[in-house]
């Protein structure tokens, strides 16, 4: 069989697989499967703690800002792995799969299809920034995966939504919206620190305590491509 031929010089290749090969797995098998949110939350909390441990060396130097700034991309990396796979899975399941090339269509796809398949509902709003033409905001008023997550104050502006930022980033990457960056926007920090493309930062909002917004900032090249499409 061809799949065995890849293990060059391996001695363990003789074991005959008893279970069906992964590629023979029915694509729809777990489409509607569910597991408990608790189980997810326990694993997710361990991921956050692991991330914290990994960045803690740096965090000691300059406690708040650096710590949370490093923590976000670290957690986003976890999300990135999920996002790439989710994209592939979703596209295989689409009746008429296509690669989105327009910014708005792409975002609508994330907002509706991806969000719905991951979290069981579409995101609550998708907005275009009025200040910057390269920025969009995707809001979920009550992100299901953050339900059981509460973070200590020391982590400052860090929010576990960085995981979802990673997912969205990966989906954009996978669709060749190059170098886009997604920042987490949640509750309670100043709006001014919008400079860096990878830093997670937050804005105040008292009405929806769990509300989370992803700030999606597209790369210049993406906007240029947009203009080409528009014939400008």
């Amino acid at each position, binding site marked *: 069989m061809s799949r065995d031929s890849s293990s060059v010089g391996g001695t363990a*290749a003789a074991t005959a697989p008893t279970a069906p090969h992964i590629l023979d797995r029915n694509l729809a098998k777990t489409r509607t499967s*569910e597991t408990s*949110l608790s189980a997810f939350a326990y694993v997710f909390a361990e*991921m956050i703690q692991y991330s914290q441990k990994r960045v803690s060396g740096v965090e000691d130097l300059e406690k708040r800002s650096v710590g949370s700034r490093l923590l976000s991309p670290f957690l986003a990396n976890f999300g990135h*792995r*999920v996002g790439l796979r989710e994209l592939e899975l979703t596209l295989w399941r689409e009746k008429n799969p296509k690669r989105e090339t327009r910014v708005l269509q792409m975002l609508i796809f994330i907002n509706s299809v991806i969000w719905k398949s991951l979290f069981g509902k579409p995101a609550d709003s998708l907005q275009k920034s009025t200040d910057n033409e390269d920025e969009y905001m995707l809001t979920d008023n009550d992100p299901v995966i953050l339900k059981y997550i509460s973070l200590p104050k020391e982590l400052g502006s860090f929010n576990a939504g960085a995981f979802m930022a990673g997912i969205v980033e990966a989906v954009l990457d996978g669709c060749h919206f190059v170098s886009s960056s997604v920042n987490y926007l949640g509750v309670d920090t100043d709006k001014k620190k919008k400079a860096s493309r990878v830093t997670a930062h937050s804005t105040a909002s008292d009405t929806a305590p769990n509300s989370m917004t992803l700030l999606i900032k597209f790369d210049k090249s993406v906007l240029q491509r947009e203009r080409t499409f528009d014939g400008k």
Partner: protein
Amino acid sequence: MQGTPITTKASFPTTSTAAAARAKQTGDDIWRNRTDKINAELFALTYGSLVATLVKDYEDYAEVNTQLDKMGYNIGVRLIEEFLAKSSLPKCGTFVETADVISKIGFKMFLGITPTITNWSADTKEFSIIIDENPLSEFVELPDDALLPPPASTGGSAATGLWYSNILCGVLRGALEMVLLQVDVFFVSDVLRHDDATEIRVRLVRILDEDVPASDE
């Protein structure tokens, strides 16, 4: 190969049918009516992301197994509270009953599955959990170098290669310790490693003392 089965006796110890039926009902009820759910694929992909990251960071499968076990332990010691609160179970009378509850209520409550309890040792201090559908390992294929031969069946945790779902061992160990059961928990086989079944072995080491240690003020 796993060597000889630990016991081939025709009749395994079981709880009374009434107690077993009750456990099943409790588990089903909690799962159906009192559990917030989430997409199982998101869960599987997320766990996969964790394992992949650990493999990348530690570059050593044995160490990844250890880390997963530790994380599981952390989870287990917290998870037991939710378990007890939701199930409002009385204390288990025997280890056999404990095993039944782990499968029908514990696994059901958190993962929505009811694995099979089997292969009891003669002294009923050891049993196996056979997982048919492992929600953690959906979409997973292990690379060849993670498939090193399984440890001898007497093996304990000195495993080689990757035990992908090793976090489960930690969870069981942590949760049972909180109800004063000190156990060894380890994977014996995993379908991801082309074994016939996914089997976790649980061995009761001792029943812990309920007394607070003298040094603890």
